[in-house]
């Protein structure tokens, strides 16, 4: 195959360059292009004039949207890869094999872009590898997070690499990478349980700064449990969006199969949310903060989060499962994702320094940069799923790959 044919088939979706370029002119791409065109200069601004030029970061409120969104929300939403990987490859729930690749891709991109946000937010981003190679602060919870994000990013890349090799047609490499899957998955469980909870543990140092309703010695377990619910919810929602917007993946049998898998995953989210709700109650009881609940705006806001964004989606999912309604499960999953983001924003930004009189949480330029990076992330995701066998192309996608033996080709 000549390079030209290869490019045409693998990159330009079987079109000539001109056809491909023309196919890119869509309303979605125009909006996306516009957002990037507006937002990118702000990223440049940050690197020319410093963080102060685009953020409202101050000496008392050093962390803003970049971390609240990119790290503290982005990482739990990317738990998808580890949860589904564990279910399929370790627990042997092969039924979920058709969504596991997508789950790993969502996870990988989530971590990758968490690092992108870190590179924007760090004062000296070119030293991002220092905690891994140059200078160690092992008593720091962030040291653990840094190491784990580095290791887990590599781990997830390897987990996803069989798909890349499959796309590139490198069959031997694909099999080689495939044989590492179980080991990588178990390594991923270790890393994920530790760093998902470590993100919560980062705030253990600040009992006076995070509002007492959100600060708890149980923060690590709160963060881990809600990350599991959020990760599965991401698979539910993103699979639904892919199914809705990419007609190439649609056919009656796959629709039905995805519906069944969605119900199954919805069950897992409901159970996890219920556990999480219980844990949060234990947290309030442990600190004996019942009195704070109804007495201030913070108390009401806490109740809104707990009842409206943990218990409500949980009940919604239970109702959906009772009715067997796939679309209601998807709504519940979306609600769960929102709830997780609200929780991470509350801990890392909104209730942080709640007792100070004047606070600026973030500036609109930060939000603009976030939007830009998220749009780029969506475009990268779309680029990959249109080319690589991430979402099964047809329902006969073979499930016999679990052992790395009796391989089935899916191309």
């Amino acid at each position: 195959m000549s390079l030209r044919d290869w490019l045409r088939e693998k990159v330009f979706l079987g079109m000539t360059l001109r056809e491909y370029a023309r196919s890119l002119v869509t309303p979605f791409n125009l909006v996306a292009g516009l957002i990037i065109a507006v937002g990118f200069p702000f990223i440049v601004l940050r690197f020319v004039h410093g963080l102060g030029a685009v953020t409202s970061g101050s000496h008392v409120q050093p962390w803003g949207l970049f971390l609240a969104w990119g790290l503290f929300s982005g990482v739990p939403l990317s738990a998808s890869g580890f949860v589904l990987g564990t279910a399929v490859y370790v627990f042997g729930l092969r039924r979920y094999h058709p969504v596991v690749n997508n789950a790993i891709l969502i996870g990988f991109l989530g971590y990758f872009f968490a690092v992108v946000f870190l590179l924007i937010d760090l004062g000296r981003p070119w030293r991002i590898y220092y905690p891994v190679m140059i200078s160690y602060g092992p008593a720091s919870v962030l040291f653990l997070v840094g190491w784990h994000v580095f290791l887990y990013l590599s781990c997830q890349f390897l987990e996803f690499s069989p798909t890349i090799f499959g796309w590139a047609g490198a069959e031997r490499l694909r099999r080689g990478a495939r044989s590492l899957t179980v080991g990588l998955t178990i390594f991923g469980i270790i890393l994920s349980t530790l760093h998902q909870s470590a993100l919560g543990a980062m705030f253990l140092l600040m009992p006076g700064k995070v509002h007492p309703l959100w600060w708890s010695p149980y923060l690590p377990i709160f963060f881990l449990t809600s990350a599991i619910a959020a990760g599965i919810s991401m698979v539910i929602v993103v699979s639904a969006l892919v199914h809705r917007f990419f007609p190439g993946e649609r056919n009656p049998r796959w629709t039905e199969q995805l519906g069944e898998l969605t119900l199954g995953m919805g069950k897992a989210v409901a159970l996890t949310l219920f556990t999480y709700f219980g844990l949060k109650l234990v947290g309030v009881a442990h600190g004996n903060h019942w009195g704070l609940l109804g007495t201030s705006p913070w108390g009401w806001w806490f109740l809104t989060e707990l009842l409206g964004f943990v218990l409500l989606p949980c009940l919604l999912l239970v109702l959906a499962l009772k009715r067997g309604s796939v679309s209601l499960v998807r709504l519940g999953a979306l609600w769960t994702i929102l709830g997780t983001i609200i929780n991470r924003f509350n801990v890392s930004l909104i209730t942080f320094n709640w007792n100070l009189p004047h606070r600026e949480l973030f500036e609109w330029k930060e939000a603009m940069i976030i939007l830009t990076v998220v749009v780029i992330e969506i475009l990268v995701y779309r680029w990959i799923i249109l080319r690589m066998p991430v979402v099964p192309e047809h329902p006969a996608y073979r499930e016999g790959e679990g052992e790395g033996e009796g391989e089935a080709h899916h191309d």
Partner: protein
Amino acid sequence: MMDKLVTRRGFLKGVLGTAIGGLILHPVRALAQSARERPDHFAILADLTRCIGCRRCEAACNRANGLPPPEVPFDDKSVFEEKRRPDEKAFTVVNRYEDPKTGKPVYVKIQCMHCEEPACASACLVGALKKTPEGPVIYNEDVCIGCRYCMSACPFYIPAFEYFDPVSPRIQKCYMCYHRIRKGEVPACVAECPMGALTFGRRSELIKLARERIMKNPDRYVDHIYGEHEVGGTDWLYISGVPFEELGFPTNLPEKPLPELSKGFLSLVPIVLVSWPALFGGIYLMSRSRDRERTALTRTRTQAADTGTDKEGNDGDDGTTTSQGE
């Protein structure tokens, strides 16, 4: 060439060793220092009843640390109109409060408290912030990556960041004039104070001195040495005639050193690292052997179907049917 190889291998070993050691063993060891084993650090006692708000300490600090000239001159009292905080251009500032009983002004000098077990140092993932054996908490800008976790962690809101430096932004704060202490001199602010409001010495001695002053003049002082126990103790100690909560001091702080709060979590890390592979590896082996049995069962059925009836080896469970082709 040989040397180079060895060095490279040595380097790799070093990195790996530190990585594994750091991930498994180090956290527990790093946090194991108890209050009793602490050296008797240098400390500074600030007697707020003696401070007249002359701001000479601010000027001395500025000179000793080579900081940029201030926007408002150091003898200008108008700065007291608002409450200021230390920042990257001023490691210490004096604020004016009012004694609610007498209406007289009370001046409070603020700067890094130099905690006995600093939260900032325990937060720093590259070890840029360190508690020295002498007492000062110092900073090494050569390894700082600018994550600003130290700022989030500090209970006194002290570390400041150079937000408008895109190339080499630093964390800035008081270093208790570490360079002077090592030469046997006292910190610049202490040397400059005309009222004897600041006393430099060993922490244990200063606590005795503070107690003595409070005992001799119980009407002049409130019965509290701020910094003796707050967050496990600090190397700046304050005594005052006005309750500390009236003077902007954080009074909601635990007596336990803050790094203790993440100790429990960090001590779980090695447990997870060691036990998860066994646990989940075991679960994997169990689920695989179950799969094998199923596959074998399906095969037997298929064979039976081939020889006997024309029935397919399909038992209807969508989780198992497709594995028959192996």
